[in-house]
């Protein structure tokens, strides 16, 4: 997947550092003609070129080197390999290939698999279909090879190993088409290839002549699996690529700076451009990254999460400004990039003309965003009921933004409320979805809609303030296992005049440590209401909360 080099004089190679040796991982046609092969070290590649002094500027072909240097010798242009850019290019091709088939699958680093079952009817014949795909990719500036076969495995093998650039295997003749190809076309590991090569098995035809039973025993199931996939005996599922459509917009700052106002201005301009792109796509973002590119340092990235998808410049700007205030750049930044991993459709969104007239739901969502982004996602939460007798575990906090944390946190305990209570009852993933819905419901437009109101009888009588951990107190009880009559709290004695209980709470053995407590609601002579329990194993007393 090497982009065809622009009309440059010098041959271009892409290099990567492997075990402290710089090797060529891709070379353009001019370089190949000069004898450069993939796998050479850069020094070998340079040596294989005739040393003709040429006057070419590096910056004319490299987008990375920003300094236009007119060095005298660059007869070979070496560019560092950027796998992320490769991937992005492949993904953009996948989006483009969507016009041929709804099922476009990304295979490995360099291959797109298109499921064209049924699609060929839209074209005169299969050859035309394949030609349009391959030529289309070529028009986009990439060198491409294509093959069309009955199975994804066979198409992969033909595209990679067949001498022709475009090849269509006739229906039902897959095995015959594959037979002359080398075994390397089967997508098996290099170790297996080496073992096969040692046995003199070079082609798939030779492989098919070997007894099947011994193949599995000698080379593992993977070889058989790949072989069966190519021949169609083993199904291969293609997962359609969803265009995550990484959206980004960036700005280069002429001279690296850490001046706050300059950075703010740069971010604002980038944001305006970014939101314009979103508007064009009728989409919004829930997560946004701001990367500051500092020379000679790793880029610094700020993450911004919002509770519901948005493309409001005003809102995002107010959130970003907060992040910029706390930003510490060791050196100046030379560029700013705003990017998002995913965008969400945002239909029916009213772009703002004035700052007024927003609905409550939007207001609340923006509030949650502001709070979460300054205080952290785990600080802004919604409590949800959990069916558990142990008071500390009768609820859980669910962050209102950031799906990742929500997914990680939820899922060990189960909520089982009666179905009538607007149905917060489900388990596993369904429950997670429900949580997400709960999390967004009030943030969404349905703020005035049906709320989730559980009847008071659903909850046991509990104090409004529960100490984060119970505090041990010394208690005097008239009867050893009976209600307490007084206890010491912070240096003074609280005499209990009224006591209700015990409410005996126990937890199951499968939860680890047993919790076996007798709770008492105590009214003190001072007029305060206290919630105490006696640990039944040890007889110790603890204050657990206050009816404040």
């Amino acid at each position, binding site marked *: 997947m090497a982009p065809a080099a622009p009309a440059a004089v010098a041959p271009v190679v892409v290099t990567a550092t492997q075990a402290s040796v710089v090797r060529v991982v891709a070379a353009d046609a001019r370089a190949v003609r000069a004898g450069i092969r993939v796998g050479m070290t850069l020094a070998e590649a340079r040596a294989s070129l005739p040393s003709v002094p040429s006057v070419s500027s590096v910056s004319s072909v490299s987008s990375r080197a920003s300094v236009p240097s007119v060095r005298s010798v660059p007869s070979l242009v070496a560019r560092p390999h950027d796998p992320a850019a490769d991937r992005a290019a492949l993904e953009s091709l996948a989006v483009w290939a969507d016009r041929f088939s709804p099922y476009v699958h990304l295979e490995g680093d360099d291959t797109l698999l298109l499921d064209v079952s049924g699609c060929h009817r839209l074209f005169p014949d299969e050859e035309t279909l394949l030609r349009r795909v391959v030529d289309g990719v070529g028009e986009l500036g990439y060198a491409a090879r294509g093959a069309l076969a009955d199975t994804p495995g066979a198409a992969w093998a033909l595209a990679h190993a067949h001498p022709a650039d475009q090849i269509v295997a006739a229906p039902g003749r897959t095995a015959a088409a594959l037979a002359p190809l080398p075994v390397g076309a089967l997508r098996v590991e290099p170790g297996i290839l080496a073992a096969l090569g040692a046995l003199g098995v070079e082609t798939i035809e030779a492989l098919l002549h070997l007894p099947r039973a011994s193949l599995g025993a000698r080379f593992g199931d993977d070889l058989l699996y790949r072989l069966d996939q190519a021949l169609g005996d083993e199904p291969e599922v293609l997962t359609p690529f969803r265009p995550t459509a990484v959206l980004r917009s960036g700005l280069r700052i002429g001279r690296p700076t850490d001046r706050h106002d300059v950075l703010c201005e740069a971010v604002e301009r980038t944001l305006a451009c970014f939101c314009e792109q979103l508007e064009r796509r009728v989409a919004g973002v829930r997560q946004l990254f701001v990367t500051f590119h500092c020379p000679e340092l790793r880029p610094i990235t700020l993450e911004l999460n919002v509770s519901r998808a948005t493309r409001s410049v005003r809102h995002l700007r107010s959130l970003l400004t907060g992040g910029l205030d706390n930003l510490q750049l060791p050196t100046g930044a030379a560029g700013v990039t705003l990017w998002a991993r995913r965008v969400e459709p945002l239909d029916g969104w009213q772009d703002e003309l004035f700052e007024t007239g927003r609905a*409550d739901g939007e*207001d*609340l969502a*923006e*509030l*949650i965003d502001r*709070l979460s982004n*300054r*205080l952290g996602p*785990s*600080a*802004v939460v*919604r*409590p*949800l*009921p959990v069916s558990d007798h142990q*008071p500390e575990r*009768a*609820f859980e*906090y669910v962050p209102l933004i950031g799906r990742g944390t929500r997914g990680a946190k939820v899922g060990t305990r189960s909520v089982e409320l009666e179905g009538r209570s607007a149905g917060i009852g489900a388990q596993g993933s369904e429950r997670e979805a429900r949580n997400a819905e*709960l999390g967004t419901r*009030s943030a969404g437009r349905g*703020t*005035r809609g049906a*709320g*989730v*109101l*559980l009847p*008071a009888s659903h*909850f*046991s*009588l*509990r*104090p*409004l*303030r*529960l100490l*984060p951990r119970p505090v041990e107190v010394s208690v005097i009880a008239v009867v050893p296992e009976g*209600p307490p009559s007084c206890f010491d709290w912070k240096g003074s004695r609280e*005499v209990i*005049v*009224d*006591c*209700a*209980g*015990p*409410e005996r709470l126990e937890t199951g053995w499968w939860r680890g440590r047993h919790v076996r407590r007798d709770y008492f*609601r105590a*009214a*003190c*002579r*001072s*007029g*305060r*209401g*206290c919630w105490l329990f006696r640990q039944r194993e040890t007889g110790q007393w603890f204050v657990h*909360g*206050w*009816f*404040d």
Partner: protein
Amino acid sequence: MSQAPVTRVNGGVARDDRLRQLRAMLERYQHRRRGGTRPVVPTGLARLDRALPNGGLPGGAVTEILSHLDGAGGTTLALRAAVAAAQSGRAVAVVDAGGDFYPPAMWRLGMQVDRLLVIRVSRPEEVVWAVDQCLRCSAVAAVVAPIRRLDAAASRRLQLAAESGGGLGILLRPDTGRRHSFAAVQMRVEPVPVEAPGSVALQDRGLGAAGVDGWESAGLQGGVIEGRCESVRRGGMGPSHSAPRLCRVTLMKVREGTPVEPFVIGLDDETGVEPLLPVPDHRPAERPQRSDRRISA
């Protein structure tokens, strides 16, 4: 000089009129400054609502609840008011600065699960910032936050934030004596001590004596509740109905209202219904005496 005797003759009436006029002017001025009338949020506690002007806590304003003891009843008052405010369909934010807020108890008060937002911060400046942000948001009906220290500037800022957002701001603050505040309402909440004169003697009286309907007839005698001790014995063991807690509320500052005498509110954690208490208006003479006792006790 010739007018002086006239003024003196009508002194009482004229002064009253003048005061009323001034009060009305002040009220009009304050209304205008806050952009018209704000809705009043009844707390659901009849005794408290009666003491507050217009029958409830003022929306778009900050209410401070001062209390110096755990278990005094301040949190209950605050959260009940917040639940009442949430009836408007908007959200309620609770700032959990101490890590001791217990949501199930608030659901029990009638809070809707999906309208409750908890903000877990502990650093004082972050607490104030979070309260400020919530108050400014018109989608938040009430904010409840314990705030330990609040300087005058921050207090003013929060009040202005509440006025712009229209929500109810309830700050739970430690009671460290009276001081200036920009809050619209400032009230002190303290538990009413239960006098147990000779609890041994009560025990001797046994269950029989508790047959009296102890609670309804409970009298306020010098701020001390008898009859509550009766329910001790009546309650006995087992998860039975216990007597409501009592707290005394002193309205220290009420904007647009006249301060009233301290009064006692009953909080029944079990039923959530405000118990009937004898209206203390029948015994106006006892009030100074009561406060004396409290100080000596």
